[in-house]
């Protein structure tokens, strides 16, 4: 185990090379619906229990099923109303279980990225070969069912190994060359995209995904009231939009259909979407488009700036 995974170097949030998003936008805004399948009776993982009760853990299972049965169509209609294409963090087994959801999102030109096979199968304890196989399965499933070359990753249930990012990037290259496996949502260290160190040296980007704006973190972990969550989203936007004048920022709202699409929570979400998309200098986009634009226009200058700012003596060496 490591004290620091060393995925990125220290890069102070001041005087960075200026990012300007397409059409002079100050802020890149994306919504990432997690469309997940949780199993009722998954095999046990040695490090993490899938459910708090013995089988059948219907309280947790059934509310997540609500997201697919009821919530998805509500969120899809709402995002469409505000001209937002979702960037789906997908439990890729859902392509088999609920193909109707996949085809509806495909029709709307939404992005699909990998969130593993099931959100009840954790990376913990997998060998390198097993994790590679799981990631490959997820990316080929997306390609088979949507024709998309999966660009992004959010590890299933945010369960990682030290090699997760390396393996995702390598499998992406094996399957799709430079068109696949080039961004991650797994790191929360910044409000702008950042280059990530990989053993393959492949250009690879961390795209801000925001744990704080995540509806499940807000509602289920921090137990925030719905209207306060709405206010938090608008406050988050206001500051990032203001700072985007100096250098373009990224705002992401990660959602779950079993949280944000409940009848008592949709109003707060809609008010925030209306507010955010009502600003002129916002680039309403997807995770992949942010990562591609950054890779093409700012990746090299960012790398150079980061390198120039590292301590000459090599830091503490820890």
């Amino acid at each position: 185990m490591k004290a620091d995974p060393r995925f990125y170097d220290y890069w102070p949030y001041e005087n960075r090379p200026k990012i300007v998003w397409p059409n002079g936008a100050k802020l890149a805004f994306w919504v990432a619906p997690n469309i997940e399948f949780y199993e009722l009776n998954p095999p046990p993982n040695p490090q993490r229990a899938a459910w708090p009760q013995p089988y059948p853990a219907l309280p947790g299972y059934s509310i997540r099923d609500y997201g697919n049965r009821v919530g998805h169509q509500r969120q899809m209609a709402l995002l469409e109303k505000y001209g937002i294409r979702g960037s789906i963090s997908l439990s890729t087994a859902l392509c088999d279980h609920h193909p109707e959801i996949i085809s509806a999102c495909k029709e709307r030109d939404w992005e699909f990225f990998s969130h593993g096979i099931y959100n009840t199968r954790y990376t913990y304890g997998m060998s390198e070969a097993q994790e590679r196989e799981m990631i490959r399965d997820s990316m080929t499933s997306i390609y088979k069912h949507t024709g998309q070359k999966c660009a992004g990753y959010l590890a299933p249930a945010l369960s990682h190994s030290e090699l997760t990012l390396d393996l995702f990037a390598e499998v992406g290259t094996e399957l799709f060359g430079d068109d696949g496996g080039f961004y991650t949502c797994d790191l929360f260290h910044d409000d702008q995209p950042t280059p990530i160190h990989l053993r393959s040296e492949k250009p690879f980007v961390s795209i801000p995904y925001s744990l704080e704006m995540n509806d499940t973190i807000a509602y289920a972990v921090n137990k925030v009231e719905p209207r306060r969550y709405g206010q938090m989203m608008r406050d988050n936007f206001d500051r990032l939009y203001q700072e985007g004048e100096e250098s373009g920022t990224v705002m992401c709202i990660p959602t779950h259909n079993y949280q944000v699409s409940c009848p008592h929570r949709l109003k707060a979400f809609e008010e925030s979407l209306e507010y955010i998309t009502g600003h002129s200098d916002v680039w309403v986009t997807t995770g992949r488009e942010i990562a591609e634009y950054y890779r093409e226009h700012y990746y090299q200058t960012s790398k150079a700036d980061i390198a120039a700012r590292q301590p000459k003596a090599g830091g503490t060496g820890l």
Partner: protein
Amino acid sequence: MSLEKEYLQYPLRRYGMDHDRYEWSQLGERPKVQWPNNKKLALWVNVSLQFFPLNQKGIPFKVPGGMTMPYPDLRHFSLRDYGNRVGIYRFLKAFDRFGIQPTFAMNTVLAKRNPYLLNTICERGSEILCHGWDMDSLHYGGQDEAVEADLVKKSLDDLRELSGQEIAGWISPARNESENTPDLLAANGVKYFCDWVNDDMPYPFHTAHGDLTAMPLSNELEDRFILMNNLHSEDSYVEQIQDACDFLLAEAEHSGGRILALNIHPWLLGQPHRIAKLEAVLDYLSSQDGVWSAGASEILSHC
């Protein structure tokens, strides 16, 4: 280091669900439901009437709202009892004032212990659901099937005898189940149950003894979940229900009738500082033209 090979095998990765209890279907794809008098939103208010034993065993877990202190936990025992002595009568006045037709989900032990309350509810003509034996008699994975079969049978038999009602509906204590619970409920004449929170409308749920109806009863909008689990303010509780009502009324304009199901507890909302918030909720809901207040069986008869 590696995991067993089964961990990367997915025998139930197939179309539909990973079990055979119900069919996969999206709410928006189903036939529209039409409520009487062109109403848009059926309001189902269910009051959970509960008995929390002082000598709680907590098997396999301590139920939310149950005893938390060393025996005898008089504070929680008596505070829960408050609901059945005081809070419930504030509820009844509020229901009458706003024309609400509630149902009452009763622990059978409470019906045995408290005939006055049972008679009061029966005389009002309200539907009673069985809420299991008591709040310390849980249904859970791994439970002995014969033990659970006895528990289900005596809970229903005794409540039917005491109330004189058919008792078609069921809510498990803590809304927890074993894998056999739905089969046992169907075998004992239950028509609908409310433990699964995966839909906003009723749907057929398969058992070894014919289909049950799974009736929606939101956990996320329950007073206990919002006030006690999430520690939201009472004002936020009111707002969340108003927002849900507004949303469902609007959705029903193009999707067919919807249900707003509220589960409430007299030991919580029946307190002097909270009862006005329940009244505010009922005032708001009953003043909407599209809202129709009815019991669960009556709502289901129109589905």
